[in-house]
C-alpha cells in the first residue's frame, strides 16, 4: 500500500512539474492573475467604500456573500461537533469542588492567565475595530477572543469557565452573530437596495450625516462584529467539546 501510494504521488508530482513550464514568472506585475478583476478593486476601493484596507473591503463588501456563508459554515461545524459528542447525563450529575478548594491548580499558572486574558480581549476588540486601517478584521479578532477563554480554561479548569460562559448561551449567541450578518443584508432589502448593498443604509442613518460611501464602511463594521461574535463562541465550544469528550467535566 505504501509503495503504491508513493508511486502515485511521485507521478502526480512529475505531472505538476511539467505544467510549471507554462506559468508566468513569479512576481510579474503583468501576469494574468493580477490584471482583470483585482485592479478594479485596487483603484476604486478607497473612493467607493472609504476603507483603506483592500482585503477587508473585498472580504466584507465586494465579496460579502461568500463571507456570510463562511460564517454559516463555522456555525454548522460547531453544531456538528456538539451533535457528535454530547451524551445526555441527566441522571447523574458530577459533583465538582468549588474553586478555592482545588489542590491541582497551579498558583503561577492561574495568576499569569488571570493577568493575560483581559489584555488579550482588549487587543482582540482593537483588531476587530481597526480592521479597516490595519491588518485584522472580524475573523482574527474573534479567534483571539475565543483563545482568551481557552487560556482560562486551560489554566483554571473547564468547569470554572463553563460556570461563566454556559454552552447554551454560547450556541444562542453564535446564532445571533450569523443573524446580525444576514439581518444587515436583509435591512438593505427592506430599504430598497440589493441584498448586502450597504449604501442604502444612508437613507436611515442620513440624519447623522452619513453618506452612501461611509454607510458602506459602517455596514462593513457591523458585519465584522457579527462574524467576530460567531467565531468567538464557536471556537470556545469546539474546545470544550473536544477536550472533554463531550462530558464537560474536567477538560485538559
Amino acid at each position, binding site marked *: 500500500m505504501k509503495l503504491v501510494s508513493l508511486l502515485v504521488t511521485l507521478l502526480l508530482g512529475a505531472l505538476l512539474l511539467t505544467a510549471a513550464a507554462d506559468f508566468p514568472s513569479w512576481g510579474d506585475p503583468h501576469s494574468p492573475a493580477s490584471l482583470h478583476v483585482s485592479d478594479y478593486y485596487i483603484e476604486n476601493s478607497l473612493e467607493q467604500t472609504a476603507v483603506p484596507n483592500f482585503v477587508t473591503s473585498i472580504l466584507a463588501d465586494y465579496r460579502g456573500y461568500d463571507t456570510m456563508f463562511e460564517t454559516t459554515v463555522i456555525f454548522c461545524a460547531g453544531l456538528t461537533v456538539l451533535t457528535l459528542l454530547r451524551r445526555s447525563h441527566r441522571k447523574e450529575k458530577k459533583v465538582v469542588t468549588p474553586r478555592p478548594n482545588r489542590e491541582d491548580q497551579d498558583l503561577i499558572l492561574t495568576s499569569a492567565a488571570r493577568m493575560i486574558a483581559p489584555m488579550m480581549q482588549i487587543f482582540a476588540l482593537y483588531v476587530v475595530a481597526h480592521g479597516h486601517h490595519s491588518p485584522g478584521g472580524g475573523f482574527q479578532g474573534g479567534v*483571539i477572543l475565543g483563545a482568551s477563554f481557552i487560556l482560562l480554561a486551560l489554566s483554571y479548569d473547564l468547569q470554572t469557565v463553563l460556570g461563566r460562559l454556559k454552552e447554551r448561551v454560547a450556541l444562542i449567541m453564535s446564532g445571533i452573530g450569523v443573524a446580525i450578518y444576514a439581518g444587515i443584508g436583509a435591512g438593505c432589502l427592506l430599504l430598497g437596495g440589493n441584498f448586502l448593498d450597504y449604501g442604502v443604509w444612508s437613507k436611515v442613518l442620513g440624519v447623522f450625516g452619513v453618506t452612501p460611501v461611509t454607510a458602506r464602511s459602517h455596514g462593513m463594521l457591523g458585519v465584522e462584529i457579527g462574524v467576530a461574535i460567531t467565531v468567538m463562541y464557536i471556537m470556545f465550544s469546539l474546545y470544550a467539546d473536544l*477536550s472533554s469528550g463531550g462530558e464537560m467535566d474536567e477538560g485538559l
Partner: protein
Amino acid sequence: MNLDPGLLWQFDFLIIPMVIICAVAALTFRDLITSAVVFGAYSFFMCLLWTEMLAVDVAFTEAAVGAGVSTVLFLGTALHIKRRAKD
C-alpha cells in the same frame, strides 16, 4: 510606491527547509502529543513565510487559527484516545 520590503532569497532558503522538516517530523513521531506540538511549529513557520510574501492578513489569521486553536484541538483529542500511534 517602490518600497520593496519583499522577497529575500536568504530568508526563503532558511524557512522553506524548516517547513519541510517540520511537516515530515509531525508525521513521523509515534507520540501524538509530540506530533501536535510540531504541527504548531509548522503553522508558525508558514505564517512567517506568508508575512515575507506581504500577505499580512493571511499571516495574522494563520497565526491565530493554526498555531493557536488548531494545536489545542489536536492536544485535546490526543489526550482522549490512545497516545501512542503504531506507525
